[in-house]
């Protein structure tokens, strides 16, 4: 069924938060159009914004957690992945101390996700070692 519309959203990449339109054709995101009335982007976009849709259906995109077994990354379940991470972090903290662990977040994550992340670092693990990808 032929259907075409634009959905106004915010670019997922950096902290500027440019408005952009996602072109949706027959239920699939096919491209980006700038948002001319957006207070921040004012009809412009950087090269990342223009390609903000490109990762959505990308073949390299992870759809399952991966765990390293015998040197190889294999697919696993969320339960196993989370249990493994929780156990290993606890072990490392017990053996080497909280400051041996660092937390790397992302400018693509929402403010709420980053808030939770730094709470995990500071309150749960007990380290101030937190940074994010845009600073690297």
């Amino acid at each position, binding site marked *: 069924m*032929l259907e*075409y*519309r634009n959905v*106004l959203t915010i670019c997922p990449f950096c902290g500027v938060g440019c408005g952009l339109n996602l072109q949706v054709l*027959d239920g699939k995101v096919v491209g980006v159009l*700038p948002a001319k009335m*957006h207070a921040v982007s004012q009809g*412009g976009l950087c*090269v990342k914004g*223009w390609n903000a849709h490109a990762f959505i259906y990308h073949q390299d995109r992870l759809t399952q957690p991966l765990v390293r077994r015998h040197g190889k990354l294999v697919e696993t379940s969320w339960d196993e992945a989370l249990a493994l991470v929780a156990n290993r972090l606890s072990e490392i903290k017990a053996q080497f101390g909280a400051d041996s662990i660092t937390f790397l977040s992302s400018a693509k994550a929402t403010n709420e996700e980053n808030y939770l992340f730094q709470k995990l670092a500071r309150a749960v693990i007990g380290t101030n070692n937190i940074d994010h990808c845009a600073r690297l």
Partner: protein
Amino acid sequence: MDARLTALRQAMTQILPDVAGVIGLKCGPAGSNAPHLFQKERPEELADLALWPKYPVPDTLRLLQKAHPEAKLAIICRGCEERGLVEMAKHTQVNLDNVTMIGLACTPEEATFCRCARPYTVQAQITVGERTAGVPDPVTDDFAAKGQEEKLAFWKEQFLHCIKCYGCRNICPQCFCNVCTLEDEKWVSTGWLPMPLPPMYHLVRAMHMTAKCVACRECEETCPAGIPMAIHYRLIARDVQEMFDYETGASLAEKPPQLLVLAEGEFERTGLPH
């Protein structure tokens, strides 16, 4: 309240039952608007029809036709957009046989904003809005009057601001190549800033706009660095008019000067797959 909106809604209501959809602009959240396919299943959306700021809708038609080549469609288009559609049809990027063009005349303010010489359609079957005369382009005229050295210095300075967002190419209603020269390492060092001298990206772009630029000014509007590249493309269009007596987008019958037919034998198009 713009009288054109009422007239457009009437025209759309009449045509909607006969087509798969009408391409126009729809109001979105927070005062935004964007291209949209209005369809008979959702007549309430006509209340959200928008006019300004404009978007280059020829590419929307191309997108839709690639996925649904048989669909009968209608499209609301201004003068520049109609020219865009005509040129795309000549380059076999859209098929106008199944398309009804609803020509939208620009207001004097809109024409002045785009410095447009022809702010109205000439081929559209249905027209809305009162035709306003074309306006002069003092920006381009002033620039044309500059000396060679001054012109060179101007562009050198302007292109230094370029962040290689590829916005001018992405928004251009005439840029449809699957394999783009601007991404070819032979010509453009992709991923490098600042723009080197000579600014190959912009020189290649200007060359490719020969006999294709329809003077819609979308490139300038989307440029985050505010580079007035339309001056460049319009000067080339003036040269094309002079050298080949060719006005971009004016007539479906007129062949673009780059599509030459060789004297002996038939010319076979062996273009890239679409």
